[in-house]
C-alpha cells in the first residue's frame, strides 16, 4: 500500500497509532515528488527543510498525545498565500523573489494544527486564468493526461492532490479557481462562503470574490481542513464573526428529503454532452437516495461571465497597482524617472493575461465608463444574488456541472481569451453571490478524463454541501490517474 494515496483521516489514524512517523510520511511524499513532479510540474517550490522541521514539531505533539486531525498531515500551499520566510511568487516574475515578512492567517491556523508543509504550488499568474498555463514558472500538467491542462488557477494544488504529491492542498477561488481544477484533476475542492475564511495574507486578485479553501481527495477531508482554517480574524474586516460549525458534522448524512435544484441554464447549450450526462446521472443517484430534484431557472446566468470579468478585473487593476518595483518585487534596470521605472518594471514583471485584466479593469473604472460597466456589473451582482435567494427559498442545494468540458489540451484556447472566459460560466455566480460550493468527481469521459459536478449551498451552510458531496462520494469509485 502506498501511504501517499490515503486520505487525511486514514493518515491521521496511522500517525496516531505510530504505524508511521510524521517524518516518514513527509518523506514518502518527497520521494514521490522527486519521481513524479517533473511530469506534473505542480510545485513552484518544494520545501524539504520546512517539511522536516514541521514534521518534527508534529511528531512531538503526536508523541505527547496532543495530536489534532491535521497534525503531521503533509499539505501543499498555493503560491499566492503568504508564508513567512518562504517565497510567495503568485507565479509571477513580478514577485519571483518576494519573501513575505508575515504569515497569512490561514498559515497561522494550519501551523497551529501542526501541518507539515511540502511546498508552494503553481497557479495561473496572480490567479488569473483557468489553466495554470499563465504561470511564469511551472505550467502544470493534468495527472490524468499530461498533454492536458490541470485547470486553474489553483491547478498546481489540484494536480498535486490528484497525483498524490501531497495529502491535500490549499487553494484560492475567485471565479472557480478551486472547483474547476478540482474537476479537471478528479479531486474534491471547496470554496467556502465569502467571509468564512480570512483572506489576510492571500495576495489579492479580486477582493470581493477571493476566498481560500481546501482541495483534497474527498469531501470529508475538505471539511477537516475547513474546521482548521475557518473563523473570525482581526486582520480581515470582511471575515464573519458568526460561530464556526463542525464542517464534518454531516458526513454520512441521509439525503432523504433534501431538496436539490437544477437550474436549466446550467444544462443548456455550451455544456458538453458527456458532462451533462454525468451530472444528470449524479442527480438521479441523489434521487435514488431519497433526495428531491427540483427544476428551476437562473435567467441572469447569461450575463454572469461579463459581470464577473468586470468586477474582478476592476478590483484587480487596483489591487495590482502596488507592484511598482519600488518596495519589493521586480524592478527594471531601465533608468529614468518614477514613471519610466514603473512602466518598465510592470511591463517586464507581468505576463500578458495579467496585463489584459489590468487594462480591462482600468477601462471599466474610468470616469465616463464607470456606470456603463462597473455600475452595471454591480447591478447584475444584485440580480444574481436575488435569483439564488429565490432558489434557496425552495431548495437546500443547487447542482450544476463544475465546468462545461473536461480538461482540454495544453495549447487549446490560449489565443481566444473570450472563449476561455466563457468557460467560467458554471462557477462565477457562486463567487458573485458569496455562496459556498464544492466540486467532486461524478464520472469520467471516454478518454478517462474526470468530470466534476458542483453542489452549491446556502450562505454559511458548508456542512450540508460537504455532507451531500460525501453522500455521493460513498457511492462512487474514484479512478486514480496513472502517471
Amino acid at each position, binding site marked *: 500500500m502506498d501511504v501517499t494515496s490515503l486520505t487525511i483521516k486514514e493518515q491521521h489514524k496511522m500517525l496516531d497509532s505510530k504505524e508511521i512517523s510524521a517524518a516518514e510520511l513527509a518523506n514518502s511524499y518527497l520521494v514521490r515528488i522527486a519521481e513524479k513532479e517533473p511530469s506534473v510540474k505542480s510545485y513552484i517550490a518544494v520545501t524539504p527543510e520546512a517539511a522536516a522541521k514541521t514534521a518534527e514539531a508534529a511528531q512531538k505533539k503526536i508523541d505527547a498525545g496532543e495530536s489534532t486531525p491535521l497534525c503531521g498531515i503533509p499539505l501543499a500551499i498555493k503560491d*499566492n*498565500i*503568504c508564508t513567512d520566510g518562504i517565497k*510567495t511568487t*503568485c507565479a509571477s516574475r513580478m*514577485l519571483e523573489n*518576494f519573501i*513575505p*515578512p*508575515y504569515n*497569512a492567517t490561514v498559515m497561522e491556523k494550519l501551523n497551529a494544527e501542526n501541518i507539515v508543509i511540502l511546498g508552494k504550488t503553481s497557479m495561473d499568474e496572480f490567479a488569473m486564468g483557468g489553466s495554470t498555463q499563465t504561470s511564469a514558472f511551472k505550467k502544470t500538467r493534468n495527472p490524468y493526461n499530461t498533454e492536458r491542462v490541470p485547470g486553474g488557477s489553483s491547478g498546481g494544488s489540484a494536480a498535486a492532490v490528484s497525483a498524490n504529491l501531497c495529502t491535500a492542498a490549499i487553494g484560492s477561488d475567485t471565479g472557480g479557481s478551486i472547483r474547476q481544477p478540482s474537476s479537471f484533476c478528479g479531486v474534491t475542492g471547496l470554496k467556502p462562503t465569502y467571509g468564512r475564511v480570512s*483572506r*489576510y*495574507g*492571500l*495576495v*489579492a486578485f*479580486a*477582493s*470581493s470574490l477571493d476566498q481560500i479553501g481546501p482541495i483534497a481527495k474527498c469531501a470529508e477531508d475538505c471539511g477537516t481542513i475547513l474546521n482548521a482554517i475557518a473563523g473570525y480574524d*482581526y*486582520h*480581515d*474586516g*470582511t471575515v464573519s464573526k458568526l460561530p464556526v460549525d463542525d464542517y464534518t458534522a454531516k458526513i454520512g448524512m441521509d439525503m432523504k428529503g433534501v431538496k436539490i435544484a437544477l437550474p436549466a441554464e446550467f444544462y443548456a447549450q455550451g455544456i458538453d454532452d458527456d458532462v451533462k450526462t454525468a451530472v444528470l446521472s449524479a442527480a438521479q443517484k441523489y434521487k435514488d437516495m431519497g433526495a428531491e430534484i427540483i427544476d428551476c431557472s437562473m435567467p441572469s446566468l447569461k450575463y454572469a461571465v461579463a459581470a464577473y470579468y468586470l468586477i474582478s478585473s*476592476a*478590483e484587480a*487593476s*487596483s489591487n495590482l*497597482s*502596488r507592484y*511598482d518595483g*519600488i*518596495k*519589493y518585487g521586480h524592478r527594471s534596470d531601465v533608468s529614468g524617472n*518614477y*514613471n519610466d521605472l*514603473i512602466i518598465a518594471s510592470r511591463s517586464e514583471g507581468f505576463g500578458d493575461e495579467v496585463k489584459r485584466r489590468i487594462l480591462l479593469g*482600468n477601462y471599466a*473604472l*474610468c*470616469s465616463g465608463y*464607470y456606470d456603463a460597466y*462597473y455600475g452595471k456589473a454591480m447591478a447584475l451582482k444584485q440580480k444574481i444574488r436575488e435569483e439564488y435567494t429565490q432558489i434557496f427559498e425552495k431548495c437546500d442545494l443547487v447542482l450544476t456541472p463544475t465546468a462545461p468540458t473536461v480538461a482540454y489540451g495544453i495549447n487549446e484556447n490560449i489565443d481566444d481569451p473570450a472563449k476561455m472566459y466563457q468557460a467560467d460560466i458554471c462557477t462565477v455566480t457562486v463567487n458573485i453571490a458569496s455562496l459556498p460550493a464544492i466540486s467532486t468527481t461524478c464520472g469520467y469521459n471516454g478518454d478517462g478524463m474526470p468530470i466534476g459536478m458542483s453542489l452549491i449551498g446556502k450562505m454559511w451552510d458548508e456542512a450540508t454541501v460537504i455532507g451531500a458531496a460525501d453522500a455521493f462520494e460513498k457511492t462512487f469509485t474514484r479512478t486514480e490517474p496513472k502517471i
Partner: protein
Amino acid sequence: MSSYIPVIGLEIHSELLTKSKVFCTCSAEFGGDKNSRCCPVCSGMPGTLPIINQTAVEYAVKAGYALGCSINKFSVFDRKNYFYPDLPKAYQISQLNLPLCINGLVPIEYEEDGVKKSKNIRINRIHLEEDAGKLIHDDLNGVSLADYNRCGIPLIEIVTEPDIGSAEEARCFVEKIALLLQYVGVSDCKMEQGSIRCDVNISLMKPTDTEFGTRAEIKNLNSLKSIYRTIEFEIKRQSRLLDRGERVVQETRRYDDNKGETRTMRSKEDAHDYKYFPDPDILQVNFTDEDLARIKGSLPEMPYQRLERYISAGIQEKDAKIIVNSKRLSDLFDDTLKVYNNPKSVANFVIGELMRRINLGEIDLEKLNFTAEEFAKVIEMADTEKVSKGDAKEIFREMSEKGGSPEEIAKARGMLIVTDTGKVLEAIDEVIAANEKAVNQYVSGDVKVFGFLMGQCSKALRGSATPKVIKEELEKKLKSLVG
C-alpha cells in the same frame, strides 16, 4: 483693473489625534526614525488588508458635530487610485459619494477695512481618509527615499462650499476650523508639523455674472500666511488675465513661498482619473441612533459655550473672546479658576500680563514653565496683598522664565508683605519726628499733607506693609496728635 468678486472654496486636511493609524495598529505619533512606524499593512505588502480604526471614525464624526454637520448613518470607503512612490498601495482609501459628515455651517468673524464683519461658511462634507508617506530627495546622491511613517495616519478632509470671498475670510475660516478641531479634541492642528494643510479653489466673477468663472486649484498650503498670500496673488493674476480679455485656465497650481506666487503644476488635460470605486476590503459604516447620541454626548465644551460661561462670570466680552480664541489659553484659564476661583481677577492678569508677555514672545503657551496652580497662586498673592501688584508681575516673570513656586520666589527676593504693626508704628514715629513742619500743618487743619506723610511712611517700610495698614495707623496717630 476692473473689480471682480472672488469665489473661494477650501479643502482642509487635518490629521486626527488617534494613537494608532487608521487601517493598522502602528503608532500614529509624529516623527520617529524613518520607517520605524510601519508594518506590512501600511507599507502595502501583498496580501495585507486594512482594518478600520473605530476611534478615527468617531473623531471624524466629532469633527462633523463641531462644524455643525449632519452625520450620514450609512457611509462607504472608496479607493482613490493613482501611482506615486509615497503611496505604497497605489490607492488611497478615502470616501467619495457617501462621506461621514455633510452640510455643515461655520460662523466666522473678521475685520475688513476696519469694519467688523461676520459670515457663515457652509461645509459641503467631511470625509475620513489616510495620509500618504513622505519622500526625501537626496540631491547629493541623486536618489529619492520614501519614509512610510506617515502612511495611514488618519486625515479628515473638510470641503467648503465656495462661500469665501477674500484672503482675510479664508485666513479667519482656517483659524476657526483649527480652533474648533482643537476644542473638540480630534486634531492638534499644528501647521508646522503638517497636521493641517489646505487646498484653495479660486475663481473670479463680475458682479453682473450669473455663473462662476473658471477656477484654479492651489495645492498643499501649510500656513495661514501662505493661504493668505496665495489668494491675494491669485486674485491679482486672474484679474489681470480677465482685464486683458484672456481666459483663466482650469488647472492645478503650486505656491512658491519664496517668490510669493503660484505656478502651473498640471493642467486639466493632465488631471488624474482616480477611478474611484468602493473598497471591497472595508465594510460599510452603519451608525445607529444610539451610536450617534453617544458620540454627540461625549463632545467637550465648545468655544461658544466657554464664551457664554466667561461672560456670565462677569468677564468683558472682548477679553473673553481673546481667551477663548486660544484653546491652550482657555484651558490654562479654566485650570487656574479651579484653584483660585476669581474669574475677573484671573482674566485681568491673563489679558494684562500673560498676553503681554506672549505677544512679546517671552512666553510660549505650548511650553509653559509654570503650572496652573502656580499661576493661580501669584494672582491670589497680589489680590490678597501678600505681595504688591508690581512685585507680582516680577514674580510671574521669574516663574515663566525659570519656573519655581511664587511663594518661594517672593520670599527669596524679600517681596512678602509682613504686617508687623510694631514696625509700622516705629516707622510712623520716625516720619513724624523727621517732618515736624508737615505734621504741624496737618494738626492745624491742612489735611492735604496726609498724602506726603503717607508716602514717606511707605518709603520707609519699602513694601513690607500694605498701604491699608499704613494708612490706618498713620491716621490714628495723627488724630491723636490733633487731640
